[in-house]
C-alpha cells in the first residue's frame, strides 16, 4: 500500500504548481521506496524507461523546419490565406479541422496532424486570421483563447478518432489487457464500439465551437470592421 504514496505527491505537487518534471521524478522516487525498491533499482528503472521512450521526442525534429518557415512568413501567409475567405469563422474552421483529424485518425493516419506539425504553423494562425478579418486585431487574452481552441480541436479529434482504427496501439493494448484477464475480444469489435463515442464527441465539441463563435462575436473589440 505504501507504493500509493506517489499519487498524493503528484496531486499536491501539481496543485502547489511546482515544476512538473520535479514532481514526476519525486513521485517516482517515493513510489519506488514505498514499494520496497532499492534506490539504485529505482534510478535504473527510470533510466531504462526514459531511454526506451526516446521515440516520443522525435516529434521535435520538425521544429527546425517549422522555425525556418515561420522566419519566412509561414504564419503570416496562413493568416492571409484564411482572411480571403471572409465567410469562415473560427468555430467553422476548427470544426472542419476536428472532422478531418477524427476521420484521418480513424483511418490510422495520426501523423497527418499534431501540435508541432499542424497546429502551431497552420491551424492556430489560420484561426487567428479568421477572427481578425471579422473582428479586427485581437488582444492577448482573446488570442490565447483562440489558440487554446486550436490545440483542443487537434487533441479531441485525435483521441476520439484513433480508437476506430484496429491496427493502432490502443486497440491492440485493449485486446492484450483483456487477454491477460482471460477475456477475449476481436479488435474489429473493439474498434466498432469506439464509433458511438466518436460521434458524441464530435457533436458536443462542434456545438461548443459554435458557442465559441457567438462568444467571439459578442466580445469583439470596439471598432470592429464587419
Amino acid at each position: 500500500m505504501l507504493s500509493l504514496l506517489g499519487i498524493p505527491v503528484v496531486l499536491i505537487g501539481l496543485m502547489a504548481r511546482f515544476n512538473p518534471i520535479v514532481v514526476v521524478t519525486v513521485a517516482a522516487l517515493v513510489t519506488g521506496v514505498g514499494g520496497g525498491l532499492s534506490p539504485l533499482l529505482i534510478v535504473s528503472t527510470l533510466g531504462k524507461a526514459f531511454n526506451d521512450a526516446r521515440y516520443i521526442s522525435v516529434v521535435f525534429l520538425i521544429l527546425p523546419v517549422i522555425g525556418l518557415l515561420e522566419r519566412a512568413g509561414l504564419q503570416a501567409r496562413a493568416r492571409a490565406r484564411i482572411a480571403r475567405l471572409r465567410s469562415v469563422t473560427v468555430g467553422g474552421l476548427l470544426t472542419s479541422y476536428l472532422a478531418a483529424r477524427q476521420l484521418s485518425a480513424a483511418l490510422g493516419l495520426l501523423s497527418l496532424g499534431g501540435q508541432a506539425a499542424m497546429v502551431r504553423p497552420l491551424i492556430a494562425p489560420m484561426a487567428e486570421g479568421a477572427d481578425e478579418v471579422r473582428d479586427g486585431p485581437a488582444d492577448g487574452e482573446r488570442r490565447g483563447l483562440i489558440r487554446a481552441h486550436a490545440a483542443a480541436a487537434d487533441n479531441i479529434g485525435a483521441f476520439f478518432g484513433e480508437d476506430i482504427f484496429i491496427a493502432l496501439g490502443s486497440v491492440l493494448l485493449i485486446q492484450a489487457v483483456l487477454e491477460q484477464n482471460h477475456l477475449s475480444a476481436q479488435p474489429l469489435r473493439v474498434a466498432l464500439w469506439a464509433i458511438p463515442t466518436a460521434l458524441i464527441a464530435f457533436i458536443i465539441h462542434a456545438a461548443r465551437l459554435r458557442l465559441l463563435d457567438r462568444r467571439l462575436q459578442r466580445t469583439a473589440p470596439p471598432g470592429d470592421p464587419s
Partner: protein
Amino acid sequence: MIRVSAVYLLAGLVFGAIAVFTALDRGAPKRWNNTAFWALFATSFLIGDRLGDLGNGLLVLAMVAIGGLGLGARAPVTGDADAREASAARWGDRLFLPVLVVPVTTLLGTLIFPHIRLAGAPLVEVKQVTVISMGLGVTLALMTAMIMLRPPLGAPVREARRLMDSVGWAAILPQLLAALGAVFALAGVGHAVGDLIGRWLPIDSRLAVVATYCVGMALFTMIMGNAFAAFPVLTAGVGAPLIVGKFGGDAAIMGALGMLSGYCGTLMTPMASHNIIPTALLELRPGAVIGVQAPTAVAVLIGNIALMYLLVFKV
C-alpha cells in the same frame, strides 16, 4: 537495414547544435543551464544505448535538476514582422510545401517501407517504421526549405533553438511520464489501486460498477498522464471481475468505452504531454488548453457511462 538509431543520431545532432549555439550566445538568459540541459538531451540520443540503465537514470536526474533550477527563453518571435510579411507575399502558398512534406513522407513510408527488402532483410526496422519515416520526412522537408528559401546555414539551428527554448523543460516530460509508469508498474501500484477500489467502494449495482470503471479510468489517467497506464489497473480491478465477471457484460464494449473514458482524463490533466506541448508551443498560460478541453471531456465521459450502461449488458 535502417534502424531507429539513425533518427536518434539526427535528433542528437540537432540538440547538440542547439547546446553549442546556446553556449556561444553570451547574452542568453540562463545560458549555462540551457547549454547543459540540451547537451544532456543530445547525449541521451547519441549514446543512450551505451550508458547503461543506471547511467541513463543519472542523466535523467541531472536533467530534472537543471530543469528544476529553471531554463531561460528569449522573446519568442523571430525576426521583424515587416520582413516576414514581405517574405510571405513573395513566397505565397509555396511556403506550405515543406510543411506538407513531413506528413506525406511519414504516411507513404509507413505504408511502403515494410514491403521493401534488400538482400533478404527488411530495408528499415519494421517495428519503428513510423518514427523512421518521420525522420526521413523531416530531413526532406528541411532540404526543401533550405533550397527554396536559401537562409543562412545556421538558421535552422537558430530557429530550432528558439522553438525548443519556448518548450523548455517540458520537452522531457513525455519521456519522464513513461519512466514514472515503469516505476509504478515495478512497485505494484496497479494492484494496490485495484485492491483499494475492490475493498472500499460498495459496488453492487450495474450502474455503480459502470460509473466506477469509467470515472476511475478518467481519474487514474489524470494522475498518470496516460490512459494506457490506467487501463490495465482499472480493467483488472473493476472491469474484468465485476462488469464482465459478476454482471456478464461484453468485454469488447467495456474495453473500447473504458479506454475512451481514459482519454477524457487525458484532456483534463496537466500531466499529459498532449496538453503540455501545445501550451508551450503556442505560448499559452498554464491550464489554458485544459480549460478549453474540460467541458467536452466531462460531457463525453458522461456519454460514455450512459453508452456503456445501455450497451455492455445487452449486446
